[in-house]
Every structure is written in C-alpha cells, then in structure tokens.
C-alpha cells in the first residue's frame, strides 16, 4: 500500500466519522452551517489556486531560460517551453492548471529522477505534518497556560513577564531561534541532534508505512527508532511552537481578563467558588472560543514558519522541498507545492471552523 493512501486513511476516516456524528446528532442549524462551510471551501481553493497561477505566469521573468542558464540555446528553450505547454494560449494553460488542481496530477519534476511531483510531495508531506502537529500543541499549551496565569496574576510580576515574553517572541526571527537552540543544545551541550528526522543508522532499521516516523516506529514496535525520532523532533518543535505561542498568550490573557469581569463570574465568586476553579473552570472555558478562532488564522503563519524551520533543521518536509526546488529552478514543482499549500490552508481553516462550531454552542448560523 503506498504511504499516501495509508495517510489519507489515517486523516480521512476520523474526519468522516466526526462529520457523520455531527450530521446524525447535530441540530439543523449546525448541519446547515457545516454544509455551507464545506461548499464555500471550493471557491476559496479556486481563488487561491488562481492567485498562484496569476503570480507564477503573469509576473515578468521566464522560468525556462533561467533554469537553463547561459547554456540554453533559443531552440532548446523553445523545445522545453512547448514540452511544458508554456506556448499555449493563457486560457488553455489556466484550464490545464485547474485540471491539475482537481486531479492532483502535477506532471513530472524537471530535475533529478523526473519522478511524478505528487509522489515526491507525498513522501515529504508526512514530515511536515509530524512537525506542525506537536508544534501547534506546544504553542497551545504554553499560550493557554501562560495567558491564564498572566490574567490571574494581573499587574504582578508573572503578568508582566508573560506580556514581555509575548512581545519579544513575536519579534524573534524564527530561523534565528532555531539556530540559537541548535547552538546551545546541539553544539554546546551536545544533548540533541540538530538536523534530520532520525539517526541515519537507526533509520535503516525502520520500516515505513505512513512516513510519519513516530507512528511507524510505534506500530512496528521499533523502540530505538522511536527514541531517535523523538529526540530529533524536540528542537524543531520548540522552535516552531514557541514562535506561535506568543499570540496565544496575548489572546488568552485578554479574553480571560474580559470574562473574569463578567456578571456570571461575580455571581460564582459570590457563591464562594474557589478562585482556581473560577479561573480554570469558568473563565478559561469561555475565553477559549476566540483562541480557537485564532488557531484557524494562525495556519498561514504556521506553514510559513514550517518552511523556515525545516530549512534550518534540514527537515525533509514540504517547506524544504519548496526551497530545494526553487534553487534547482524546478518551476513545475514550485508551482505545484505552492498550490498544495494553498489547498492545505483552505482545508485546515475548514477543519478549524467545523471544530469551532462544535465546541461553541453559542455559534448558530
């Protein structure tokens, strides 16, 4: 079974089950909302894809002549242009591009083994997934815990510390944070590996099924591989996660403070409920809703951060694939990767919106 199929099953089956649950148990309003949201994703993907096409085709600069460099004769350039279909009328190219987006058949790459681009991407995509999931979890944990702590100790040292943290972490260049972590934990202390997903020697013993090394080593019971995978994950996860956490700290803090001033909190306090229960049980629960919205908005920052993090840590994911293909001037692959990123953005924000509507009973459209 090809890895991409297995991956699709791992992601697809739970989402379908979730949707099925919603449609069976949910209210009419909820059902209608989710259906509308799914339908609205189609034009979003369409617009994002067209944007990519527009940028790649309409801006000046000829990918073929720059790929061939000074060696390229006009005949060679023409031949490759015809081969890639760049000489066709713009509308034909656009139609073909939209077709590729629907079928995911992006053609073969211009460099290396000339393999189908979708195959290369399906090898890289699990690595990115394995990076952004733990990073998002870290960002949420740090952000929600820190924000709540800051709000509950308002105008005290803890509060100011977290506020300063939020502003400073927002200003740190993500690739520099990665480099500094590498320098400290990798070079100076020598505790953690600074590049790759797995130790190359241990990596040969790992049987890959999904290309998510964490899952692969778990299902095959390869414990030394699991240890190596986790060690390699730590630094990139911290890099990407901490950068994201700043905004979560701010939003959580602001919202918890706002909810703490609500009447029902005053009522609860009057009933003698302990402050801890008040903050974590009552205020945080209600303050979470805008935080979930933020997750959807953060997707773009998360993916952009992943590109830089992957480059710093030589992480073989989609981001480093994009950067590699740009330096190899593989124009077809670049366009395909960016298109896939656009589709990812649309899909993830769809997922976040659906979860949002499930979590917050007040949202009824």
């Amino acid at each position, binding site marked *: 079974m090809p890895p991409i199929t297995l991956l699709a099953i791992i992601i697809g089956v739970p989402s379908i089950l979730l949707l099925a649950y919603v449609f069976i148990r949910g209210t009419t309003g909820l059902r209608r909302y989710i259906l509308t949201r799914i339908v609205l994703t189609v*034009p*979003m993907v369409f*617009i*994002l894809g067209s*944007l*990519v096409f527009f*940028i*790649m085709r309409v*801006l*000046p*600069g000829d*990918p073929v002549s*720059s790929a061939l460099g000074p060696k390229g004769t006009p005949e060679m350039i023409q031949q490759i242009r015809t081969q890639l279909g760049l000489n066709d009328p713009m509308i034909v190219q656009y139609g073909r591009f939209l077709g590729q987006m629907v079928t995911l058949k992006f053609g073969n790459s211009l460099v290396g083994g000339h393999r189908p681009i979708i195959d290369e991407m399906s090898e890289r995509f699990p690595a990115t997934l394995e990076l952004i999931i733990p990073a998002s979890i870290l960002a949420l944990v740090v952000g929600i815990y820190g924000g709540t702590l800051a709000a509950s100790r308002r105008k005290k040292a803890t509060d100011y510390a977290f506020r300063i943290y939020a*502003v*400073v972490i*927002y*200003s*740190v*260049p*993500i*690739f*520099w944070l990665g*480099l*500094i972590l*590498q*320098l400290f934990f990798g*070079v100076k202390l020598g505790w953690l590996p*600074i590049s790759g997903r797995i130790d190359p020697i241990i990596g040969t013993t790992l049987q890959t099924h999904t290309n998510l090394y964490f899952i692969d080593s778990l299902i095959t019971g390869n414990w030394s591989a699991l240890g190596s995978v986790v060690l390699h994950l730590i630094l990139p996860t911290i890099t990407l996660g901490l950068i994201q956490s700043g905004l979560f700290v701010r939003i959580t*803090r*602001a919202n918890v*403070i*706002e909810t703490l001033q609500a009447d029902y909190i005053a009522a609860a306090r009057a009933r003698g409920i302990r402050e801890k229960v008040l903050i974590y049980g009552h205020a945080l629960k209600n303050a979470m809703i805008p935080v979930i919205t933020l997750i959807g908005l953060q*997707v*773009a*920052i*998360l*993916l*952009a*951060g992943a*590109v*830089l993090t992957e*480059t*710093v840590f030589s992480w073989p994911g989609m981001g480093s694939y*994009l*950067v590699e293909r*740009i*330096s190899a001037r593989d124009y077809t692959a*670049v366009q395909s990767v*960016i298109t896939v*990123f*656009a589709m990812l*953005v*649309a899909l993830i*924000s769809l997922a976040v919106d659906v979860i949002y509507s499930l979590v917050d009973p007040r949202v009824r459209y």
Partner: protein
Amino acid sequence: MDTNIEKIPTTPPDEITWEDDLKKVGLLRRLLRARKWYGADWWFVAISSLAVLFFILVAIFPSWFAPYTPDTLVGPRFLAPNEIPAVSVLIAPSDSTISSLKDLAVDENADRPKVAVVMGASTSGDLNDTAKQIDADLISEGNGLRLRPVIERYDSLDSALQAVADGTDAVAVIESTEFAGVSQNYTSLREAGSLTGEVVSTSTKGFVMGTNDIGQDIYSRLIYGTRIALIIGFSSSLLSLFLGVPLGLLAGFIGGALDRLLSLVMDSLYAFPGLILAIAIAAVLGPSILNIIIAISVLYIPTYYRIVRGQTLTVKEEVYVEAARSIGARRSEILGRYIFPNVIPSVAIIFSVNVADAILTGAGLSFLGLGLPPTIADWGIDLARGQRFIQTAPWMITFPGLAILLVVLAFTLMGEGLTEIFNPKLRDR
C-alpha cells in the same frame, strides 16, 4: 481683621479649564505631559520611537558607526569577538642577520631552507602564503633567487625551537605571543620580527563581534545591514499602504459588487501563508532589492485594506457624515474630509507593526537565499552564511539575529503602545 479682607482679590479669578491650559503649552510639552494620562504605554512609545530614530540614523549614516566598509577584508578569518589576531613571527638564531623571510631566499639550485613550524598552528598557513608571495616577487625581479622553504612540522613548541637552536632548521615561525614565555630557555635565539620584515604592531585590537568566514568585520556588516533592513521594511510597507488604503476606502465607501470582488481577492490573499507567497514572487522575479520589496508589499495590502474598509463602513454611518451629505457635500469631499482623517490613526498603528513584519519576512527571504543578491550586507544572508559554521564560529549567527530582534522589537513596541493609546477601550486589558 482688616488685612484679611484686603487680601480678597477685587476681580474674580479667570476660570482656568484644562483645555485652556493645554492650549498655552507647545506641542512638545503637550506630548511630554501625556505621560500622566497614558503611563506605561507612553514610555513604551517614547523609548521605542527613540530606538527607531536611532536605527534610522544608523541606516542613513552607517559610516559614523562602522569602522570598516562591509566588504573589506579586515583580518584573519573566523576571529572570535575581541580575540587578538595572532601574528606569525620569525625566530632566528641570535648570531644570524635574518630579519624577514626574504632573507632566506637562495639560488635556484641551492638547498632549500628548512623552516620549523608547530603542528596544527595557524602559522604554517601564514608561512605558506607569505613565502609564495615573496617567491612570486623574486621571480618577477629575475635575479635567480627563489624562496621555496621546506616546512618541517614539530609536535611541540619546544622541539621546533630546539631544532633552530641546534641548527637543523634555519628559522622557526611561531605566534608572536608564544615566544615571550619560553625565551629564557633559548638564549641563542631571538625574535626576528614578522614574516615580511615589517614591524609587528603590538597594538592590534580584536574585532568587537569577530570576523566571518572570509575575514570581514561582522560589526561593520551589521551596521550596514540596518540600511537594507529599514529600506525593505519602510518601502514595502509604504507601497502596500499606498495601494491598500485607497482600495479599502473605495470598497467601504462605494460598496456593492466592487466591494465584494475586492474583499474576496483580499481575503484569499490574507489567508495565504505570507512568506510562501513572497517566496513564489521572489523566485519568479529574481534577486534584487526592488523585487523583494514588491514581493513583500503584496502580502500586506490586505492588512490595510481590511482595517480601512472596516473603519470606513463604521464612519460612513456617523451622524456628521449624514449631516455633511444633507448639506450637499460632494462624495469626494465626504471621503476626503470626513472619512479619511478617521482612518489615519489605525493606519499609523498598522504601519508600525507592518514595518516590523516586513523586516522579519525580508530577513526570512534572504535567509533562504531568495530576493537579495548574495554580495549585499544583509542580516538574513549573514545568518545563512553563519549556519554552515555553527560548530566553529557561533558568533557569526548570534549578532545578526540579535540585530533583527532589536529592530523588530522597537517597531512592535511602538505599534503596541500606539494601539493602547489610540484605543482606550483596550487599555485595561
């Protein structure tokens, strides 16, 4: 009793309101007094604007701050911060007249002179380079003399010096600081000066932030890098401001199909990961400063558009706009005189945060090797270069990153403080 009555003034005192008070003082003093209203936020804005002004000063006059130009090769490669560059010196027998390597030159067919060096020391490289250069000079002079020393490597300083004292080798080439400690053991040897015969300058200072992989001063490159960072930050933000604000005003004011179409495009652009879009644009356009500015400004048009459109929609419904419309003001007049001034504060806030974002994105692009030609002194490029030497020369990555952090922090704090001051509703949060 009588005196008390006389003290009562005959005319009532002028009623002084705070508004009149404010009118009497100048703008500067008014700004200074504002700190009583705004407290901590006032200090944020004050300190960060001073920092921003300082960075702008550095960017305009980098030569006031940097001791060298960014491209000059100032010294040895990979010199740690404040490390004094080691100078290679000749150690010769006291009775010889040798004062430079050139004195070792012999006839084409004569025995080549033996030179002792310590294994693993940097001096052997110096010896090689200097000898080659002198040899080339000798060949061009053409009087039959050549300098092709046989380099003998010893595993300790003592054995190298002993070889010269015994007469096995003609001279030894060691670091200038090493001989002072052991000179009393080798009374028959003396320090014969530098390899080229020039006076060894003892006052040689190190470099504050060290040197990079080709021997450029990292501090000077840092200073000159400010210019590129601020140029990219300001011009791309200005470009997106000039495009985003009018579009937002028009969409909000006119509404209808134009609004829907523009909003659709802008929302998609906003949802797209900014850096990836910039990567695509920069990759298609090719490396140049103008192209990186275009690539980044495209990302931030939606930010201005969304805020300005939202503000316009709110302000449009205000009573004073209604009043202006009812006395027959033209649409352009309403837009220019009543709506536009109301969006200026928000635009100022976004601009400040936007410059910070643009600098970060620009650094990210050049770190990936996109956007800027690799010869330019830029923080992102320097960081990418330093990454390859993270094991041996960590100072190459620490300082440029700190510079980005400080500049971005100044702009972010300014934006933060301005937000709190302009939006008093949020101040208590």
